[in-house]
């Protein structure tokens, strides 16, 4: 079977498992909700102010929630050491990487879709810039987080304190992307400044790091 077919089969399997157990989605949602509420208590902004800070708050909330999902989706492969069954098969490593990344992307995207209205309500948020631009930024930004996140989660399998190790190695490297997504979102929300350069940065970031992930995933998967 080709890379594409195995990717599709793996993705279908992951979606089916998630649908039945709802491990990742539940923990993510609850966590994100907590973050939103806590931030609400700390900041009580006017509509004008909220546009300036919402970008940062939203992406921090999504970042932490994404980490929850990333840990969960790999935890599933470690139960009963199912990952060994994959490693022993002729299936290509990148099929697993792509299917996991796309799966994570879907879960985080669902989270974002559910949480965005909540943010708007809690912070009296109304965007000055067009919404489709926000969606574009969200897609690029989410991919940046889950591509590296999925890869690093696979790496952190081979460490002690696995769940702490993931954010520890992921966050520093993601900071440029985070800066870009926050700045772009803020620029669109407030209508001040251009989001264009940030979007370009995100695109380049996504391309470069997805390529590196694809090149190195086989090494990481088959490391003992």
């Amino acid at each position: 079977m080709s890379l594409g077919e195995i990717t599709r089969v793996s993705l279908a399997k992951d979606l089916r498992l998630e649908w039945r157990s709802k491990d990742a989605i539940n923990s993510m949602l609850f966590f994100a909700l907590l973050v939103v509420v806590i931030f609400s208590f700390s900041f009580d902004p006017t509509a004008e102010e909220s546009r300036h800070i919402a970008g940062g708050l939203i992406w921090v909330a999504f970042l932490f929630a994404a980490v929850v999902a990333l840990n969960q989706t790999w935890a599933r492969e470690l139960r009963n050491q199912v990952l060994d069954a994959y490693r022993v098969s002729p299936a290509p490593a990148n099929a697993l990487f792509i299917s996991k990344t796309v799966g994570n992307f879907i879960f985080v995207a669902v989270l974002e879709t559910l949480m965005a209205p909540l943010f708007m309500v809690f912070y009296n948020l109304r965007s000055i810039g067009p919404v489709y631009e926000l969606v574009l930024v969200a897609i690029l930004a989410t991919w940046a987080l889950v591509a590296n996140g999925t890869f690093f989660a696979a790496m952190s399998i081979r460490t002690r304190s696995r769940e702490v190790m993931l954010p520890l190695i992921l966050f520093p490297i993601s900071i440029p992307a985070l800066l870009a997504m926050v700045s772009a979102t803020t620029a669109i929300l407030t209508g001040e400044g251009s989001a264009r350069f940030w979007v370009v940065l995100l695109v380049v970031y996504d391309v470069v790091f997805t390529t590196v992930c694809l090149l190195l995933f086989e090494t990481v998967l088959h490391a003992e």
Partner: protein
Amino acid sequence: MRRTFVILALLTLALLTYALYQGMVVAPTEQTMGEVQRIFYYHVPSAVTAFTLFLINFAVSIVYLVGRSQRADALAVSTAEVGVVFCTVVLVTGPLWARPVWGIWWTWDARLTSTLLLWLIYVSYLILRRYSTSGQTPVIAAVLAVFGFLDVPFVYLANRLFRTQHPQPVYFGGPGSGADPRMTYALLMNMAAFFAFAALVVWLRFRLERARQDFEETQALEALLQPDARSPR
């Protein structure tokens, strides 16, 4: 080996002393900032040295991924550790300079911010090495090193963009721009001295790591020859 080390150490010491003298005594006092500006002779060379070490770490990590050479891994961990130390120097000297001059400890100046991110990335690399359980630590670490260094251009770019949109106080004006040639000379001397010092420390660390690797080899060989009592399961 011993003799070479002593010679190099003495040379480095001489260089450092000479550079110190140049920076602290010979170079003229800066007009606007006063004596505090002299920290510049430590701040900039540290930054350049740290960056060079991380560049070497990147190259050596790729070499490791290709050939799985133990020496490459030893050099990788050495350059990372020493690089983090120099990075720390940059992050400490920055605020030390900023406080008297600007009245603030920290500012999100492009260079300082970039250095902070570099520091974070390589500290996370060192923590990964420490916490890795499997015998494949060098592989995983090398992979992270590749990611980390590839991130560097993005760090600088993002900071640049951020700066154009949010103008920040300029930290250190360029070393040139009509500066006294004695200042430039002092700066270059300090660069050379820091490079020499870095090379010396990296070499020491490298030897230490090689010794540790050899020790593990020996232990492994011993294990082969004599069986343990029951395995620890």
